[in-house]
């Protein structure tokens, strides 16, 4: 039961408070701030994918007039086994430092090896060329299977996965989970299928490159501005990587030009801080687009083997999922999620799932929207569709028969509470899209998806002005309209107009600790902090009104933005105006580690038509159905559903990291790494299902990540239905389709 059953303003679609600055060009992003007297940093990057650094000579660069500082990996801390962050953002320091700058060994092409700060960008670039690095080049391996083969170049001779003997291997992690007795259950199955599927490495593809500007003053205090999904995380990681007291660092989050998980760590920030400390002047750094592709964390490619067993009537009896994921050069922990969540949509009492990750000479992978789930879901969902076809069942009917519901346990053993998967499937089955005839030559695919939805730490502060307007301060960078949601939630509780609420994302010194905008957690967790702070405000206003009227606070009721008792009324504006004489300024803070989480589910329907001559696939109709719990601002819920679906479409059809034999990325730009453009797509229809999260005051569940999960299997099935040829390895780009249709 939710604390709030009816809403006045939640669910409406006001214009977002930060919108005006964004359509007029005034909003300041990472590269849009300059500090007085700033220098420009430039990074020297490795031309080799695997090498030992023999020497770095910065003397010629330092001798150039206007070059004020140089640095190498020796200027960063030497990591031990420290862990950083929590939840989705948790990482070992030894996996963070080398993604900022290498220390002795280079494990991927374009890894940072040194950096320089100079008075102009052109001079910094020139000075970077004057830094002399000598390498002992080693053979590189970029393919996950080749990396596990005998005789493969070993990336780390000092890392051994749990449960393995201490012998050199590129296996990074191996996690296996079993519930029930899957082997016995497969024995009972009347129909068994087993197939292998693969998804390539891809990039989040945010349009804004990483950028920051840092100033270290003579007292060692750091003022850092950057584009990030979590400036508290930047503060922690920068402190740890650069070896600076965390309390001396203030981080201000700029507006952020996309992240999708990719901006939940640091790359340039510790470098700018170290260079600024050395030079005694601010240092600005902006990453080149090519380096964004080559040297920040992409999403892992993966191969997934899926074995399913069912009765003739279509009851799923057993599943076995084995997912092999690329980790890149360091441990990006991609394998746990497939092990724990591969079959999260299905009632299964007997299942085994395994996730393994492999070191390769590529940048360490990083979070990308529902990290690791789309990869394993391609296999699980497409296999389910293949199984349904084998059984002669409609794919939605098959899923309805086997979908998890309240009380079912997942692989982690925890029972689901009130979830909305069945409702999404029922909406899909009855949707006009699904009931429509498939066009001649086209095909249709359906798939569903799951994301756990994170909670983690959030804070909010509400300051009431004397005119009854309020500032809502949070530490959650607004990546897709969250300030509008925060303002709606505050306005709902306080009972004041939306445009009297002024939400802001403030610096690390101006609000309590807040974890990253990630894991689909911001509207849920930071929203809950806002709701709690607003409720404190209402409680205090009721106390003040009661004191004024000489009654017990408990008898004062709050509604319509005012305190009421009998004939007495004091409005929010009146209480705000008289605050000074009634107990002082009205300011309220709330912090929490959210435990109100509830997973998200979605069902997608895709129609696609394949041109059998050119191999080009056109998405002709696309419908997304998703349980949001409660949509606070439906425009931005739909926006997440549409944007995530289109990222999935890009991954399914075209996006792919292409490495040559030397481990050099061959398509590090938007021309050759082609993300979907407007003319590639139809409208993306959306249906928001609202099954309230009983643990959250407003029923919110979180919506950002699930939308990228179903597209790949839905599209792969639509392509099969259009062509009659089964493709199990993505992306389904024209050369692959043409070869497949030709029988190759």
């Amino acid at each position, binding site marked *: 039961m939710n604390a709030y059953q009816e809403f006045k303003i939640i669910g409406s679609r006001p214009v977002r408070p930060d919108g005006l600055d964004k*359509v007029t060009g005034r909003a300041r992003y990472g590269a849009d701030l300059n500090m007085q007297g700033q220098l420009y940093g430039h990074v020297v990057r490795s031309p080799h994918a695997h090498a030992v650094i023999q020497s770095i000579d910065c003397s010629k660069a330092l001798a150039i007039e206007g070059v004020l500082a140089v640095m190498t990996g020796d200027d960063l801390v030497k990591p031990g086994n420290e862990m950083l962050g929590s939840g989705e953002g948790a990482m070992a320091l030894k996996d963070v430092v080398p993604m900022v700058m290498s220390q002795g060994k280079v494990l991927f092409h374009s890894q940072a090896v040194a950096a320089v700060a100079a008075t102009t960008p052109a001079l910094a670039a020139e000075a970077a060329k004057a830094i002399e690095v000598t390498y002992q080049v080693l053979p590189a391996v970029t393919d996950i299977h080749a990396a596990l083969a005998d005789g493969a170049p070993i990336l780390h001779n000092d890392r051994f996965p749990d449960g393995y003997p201490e012998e050199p291997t590129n296996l990074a992690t191996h996690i296996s989970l079993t519930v029930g007795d899957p082997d016995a259950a497969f024995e009972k199955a009347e129909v068994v299928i087993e197939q292998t599927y693969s998804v390539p490495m891809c990039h989040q593809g945010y349009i804004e490159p990483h950028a920051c500007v840092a100033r270290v003053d003579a007292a060692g205090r750091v003022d850092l501005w950057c584009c990030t999904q979590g400036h508290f995380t930047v503060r922690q990681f920068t402190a740890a990587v650069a070896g600076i007291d965390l309390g001396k660092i203030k981080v201000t989050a700029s507006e952020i*030009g996309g992240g999708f998980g990719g901006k939940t760590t640091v790359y340039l920030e510790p470098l700018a801080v170290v260079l600024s400390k050395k030079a005694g002047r601010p240092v600005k750094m902006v990453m080149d687009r090519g380096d964004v592709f080559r040297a920040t964390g992409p999403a892992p490619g993966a191969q997934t083997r899926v074995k399913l067993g069912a009765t003739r009537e279509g009851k799923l009896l057993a599943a076995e999922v084995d997912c092999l994921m690329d980790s890149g050069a360091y441990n990006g922990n991609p394998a746990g999620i497939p092990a724990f969540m591969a079959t999260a949509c299905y009632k299964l009492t007997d299942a085994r799932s395994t996730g393994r990750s492999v070191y390769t000479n590529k940048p360490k992978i990083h979070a990308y929207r529902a990290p690791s789930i789309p990869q394993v879901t391609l296999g699980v969902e497409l296999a389910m569709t293949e199984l349904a076809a084998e059984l002669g069942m409609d794919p939605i009917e098959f899923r309805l028969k086997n979908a998890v519901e309240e009380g079912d346990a997942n692989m982690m053993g925890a029972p689901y509470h009130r979830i909305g998967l069945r409702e999404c499937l029922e909406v899909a089955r009855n949707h006009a899209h699904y009931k429509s005839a498939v066009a001649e030559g086209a095909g249709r695919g359906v798939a569903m998806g799951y994301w756990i939805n994170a909670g983690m730490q959030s804070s909010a502060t509400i300051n009431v002005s004397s005119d009854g307007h309020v500032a809502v301060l949070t530490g959650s960078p607004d990546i897709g309209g969250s300030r509008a949601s925060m303002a709606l939630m505050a306005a709902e509780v306080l009972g004041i107009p939306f445009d009297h609420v002024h939400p802001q994302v403030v610096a690390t010194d101006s609000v309590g600790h807040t974890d990253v905008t990630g894991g689909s957690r911001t509207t849920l967790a930071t929203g809950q902090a806002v709701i709690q702070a607003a409720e404190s405000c209402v409680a205090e206003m009721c106390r003040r009104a009661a004191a004024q009227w000489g009654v017990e606070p408990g008898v004062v009721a709050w509604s319509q933005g005012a305190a009421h008792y009998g004939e007495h009324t004091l409005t929010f504006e009146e209480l705000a105006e008289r605050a000074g004489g009634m107990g002082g300024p009205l300011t309220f803070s709330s912090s929490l580690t959210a435990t109100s989480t509830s997973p998200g589910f979605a069902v997608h329907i895709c129609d696609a038509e394949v041109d059998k001559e050119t191999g080009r696939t056109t998405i002709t109709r696309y419908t997304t159905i998703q349980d949001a719990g409660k949509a606070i601002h439906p425009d931005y819920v739909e926006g997440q559903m*549409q944007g995530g679906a289109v990222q999935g479409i890009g991954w399914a059809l075209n996006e792919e990291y292409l490495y040559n034999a030397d481990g050099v990325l061959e398509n590090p730009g*938007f021309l050759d790494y082609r993300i979907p453009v*407007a003319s590639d797509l139809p*409208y993306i229809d959306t249906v928001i299902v609202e099954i309230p999260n009983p643990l959250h005051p407003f029923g919110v569940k979180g919506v950002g990540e699930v939308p990228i999960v179903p597209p790949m299997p839905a599209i792969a099935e639509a392509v099969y239905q259009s062509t009659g040829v089964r493709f199990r390895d993505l992306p389904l780009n024209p050369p692959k389709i043409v070869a497949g249709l030709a029988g190759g």
Partner: protein
Amino acid sequence: MNKPLNKMAVQATINGESTAFLCSPGQVLAEVLRDELDLIGTKIGCNTGDCGACSVLLEGRLVCSCLVLAAEVEGKSVQTVEGVADGGELHPVQQKLLEHGGLQCGICTPGVVIAAKALLEHNPDPTEEQARYWLAGNLCRCTGYDKIIRAVLDAAKTMREEAA
């Protein structure tokens, strides 16, 4: 002895105002707009003409300002996103993007505003397909383009009604 800085003086009309600036011969317009003139609404997403975030109108023509040398605009007119609203009044494209929720992170929005404005000056009644092809040079990673296209077609309708 100081090195010669080798800067060129350029005079152009930027957002309707006569403007002079200094630039290096190799500097691109996007960089000068941002760093010399503080017109930071023009964004740099790729510097290779692939993303469209730096779209501006040069003599009324849609260009990527990362592919134009700053020195090339001598004597010409440039319009950036900062020059699109008429004083306090938003252009219909800007207004409709807000009303439709046609932006999420907003980094592509200035380029979309400029490109859509150019489209509607060129074709006041575009079809959905024409709008999609015209805006194919403006990458947006957040929205899936749905609400952008709806906003642009709605802005076209508003402008036609205002003109009628």
